[in-house]
């Protein structure tokens, strides 16, 4: 028992971090599921995190309502941004959401209430490990169910071929915005949890490189099922520690390993690492549209 307690003392923050990254990866997954490459997840997480942090710190709002508020505010931001931006496709959408993310980061940097560049210091530590993983399981379950609901199939059809979906009478705009807003809310939720983890959040933690990391978790894990991004998040967040155990500690080597894994996946396993397991998957998963799936 003592050894277990020690394990948590050392790796506690890593385990927390893995959980949060998994939820964040899922928030990106939601938009990818509808075929949208949104790079704004990090910014929405930041909005959620700062909102919740300011509420608990300055206004003494209790933890859960603050987190909910953070989520909602992020969702509203998602709606406001989504409307003008969802006309764009592919790379342009990615760049637009990215620039939105940068504008948010700079705004936060310059406003006093967010503590500026030094961030919010002294946020009460409310987030517990079990809370994070409970949330992760609920979210994972929810997304898994979503996949086979009407909404999920609409997302899937938009992702595969938007024009055909429109021709079939699906209100693609509505569903795209829905995916975007849900993704934003989930990101805001994760951000709010994260804010209450380590006393401190800074604008740097919600910037461009984080957005790229989330994309990498999704790609490496695989975007065909909800456990793909989760797996990607777990693997890549824990990777530095695993490498440390095998003796590879230098910063460059870890970074290079991340890059090499991503390259290998995109070249040889474009559906992510989880597709290794799914080769033994059930027939139920394959819809006729899957014929276009590159294996």
């Amino acid at each position, binding site marked *: 028992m003592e050894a277990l307690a020690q394990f948590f003392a050392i790796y506690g923050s890593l385990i927390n971090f893995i959980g949060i990254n998994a939820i964040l990866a899922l928030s990106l997954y939601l938009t990818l599921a509808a075929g949208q490459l949104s790079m704004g997840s990090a910014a929405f997480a930041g909005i959620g995190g700062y909102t919740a942090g300011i509420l608990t710190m300055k206004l003494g709002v209790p933890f859960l309502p603050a987190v909910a508020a953070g989520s909602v505010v992020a969702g509203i931001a998602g709606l406001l941004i989504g409307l003008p931006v969802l006309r*764009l496709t592919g*790379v342009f959408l990615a760049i637009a959401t990215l620039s939105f993310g*940068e504008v948010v980061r700079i705004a936060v940097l310059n406003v006093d209430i967010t503590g500026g560049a030094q961030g919010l210091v002294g946020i009460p530590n409310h987030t517990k490990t079990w809370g994070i993983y409970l949330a992760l399981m609920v979210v994972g379950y929810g997304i898994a169910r979503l996949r086979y609901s009407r909404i999920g199939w609409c997302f899937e059809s938009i992702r595969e071929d938007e024009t055909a979906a429109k021709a079939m009478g699906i209100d693609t705009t509505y569903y795209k915005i829905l995916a975007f807003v849900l993704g934003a809310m989930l990101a805001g939720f994760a951000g709010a949890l994260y804010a209450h983890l380590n006393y401190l959040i800074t604008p740097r933690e919600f910037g461009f490189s984080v957005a790229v990391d989330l994309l990498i978790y999704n790609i490496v894990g695989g975007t065909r099922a909800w456990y793909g991004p989760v797996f990607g998040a777990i693997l890549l967040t824990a990777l530095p520690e695993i490498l440390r155990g095998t003796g590879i500690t230098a910063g460059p080597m870890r970074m290079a390993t991340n*890059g090499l894994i*991503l390259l290998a996946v*995109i070249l040889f396993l*474009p559906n992510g690492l989880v597709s290794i397991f799914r080769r033994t998957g059930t027939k139920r998963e394959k819809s006729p549209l899957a014929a276009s799936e590159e294996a």
Partner: protein
Amino acid sequence: MDLLAQQLVNGLFIGSVYGLFAIGYTLVFGVLDILNLAHAAVFTLGGLIALWLVETCGLSIWMAFPASVLICGLLGLLLDRVAFAPLRQRADSNFSGLISSIAMAIIFESAALGLFGARTVRFPAHTVSVSVWRWEGLSITSLQVEIVAISILLMFALTQFLNRARVGKAIRAVAENDRTARLLGIHVDGIIAFTFFISSALGGAAGILFGLYFDSLSPDMGRSIELKGLAVIILGGMGSIPGAILGGLAFGLSEVLTVAITGTSNLRDAVAFTVLFTVLVLRPSGLFGRKKLREA
């Protein structure tokens, strides 16, 4: 009055470096419809390799510059070979190309980190002899003039090349429609590889000039210019070389003037990204881009 003039000089100077960087970006996008996010990493490596050549190998900067530019061109070929060519057959090649360029960027940056260390390094003093010219309160260094001259020269050479030379025209043909180009007997894969060569060479050149002027090189120096380069090519229009040049200058000026007016560097990027966002929403093809927007 000369305050404004000095700020304009500052802005034009940094703008020409941005423009040089952006040209490489937009060249690849115009030809391949792919965003090569490893471009910033090549920018970084260009500067660091030049530093290594000057410091460790004792070359003069006039030798190290072309040598490093050449090496960056070769890195571009490597990029094409490893990260882009294998994916060309795929239906979603734009997206997967983007991802693999991110992967290569990470690998390049970790190489820079491993080979050159995490610290900020500098070209040895007197690598380039600098004289300062003062005139009516305006201050311009010879280094600034040299850098602007080199940037303009390279940009001009590229534009001429694309318009006049056979290979240049072939590149434009492939950019227009690669299938037709193939039918016309153009060796498309080779042209694409060559485009990468030029693009990365230019990126590396921009990195060396940046490092020379700001007297500081570090493995993450690409980060700051990565997003700006993106903004520049969107503003100027993806695939348009004049757009990239003008966009770069406009960007440089807006940056400098924003900082001058607000007295703080915090908002420097805000103006840029707000403009970028607005341009994307209102007119995604940018100022000079092609009207039809391909699926990217």
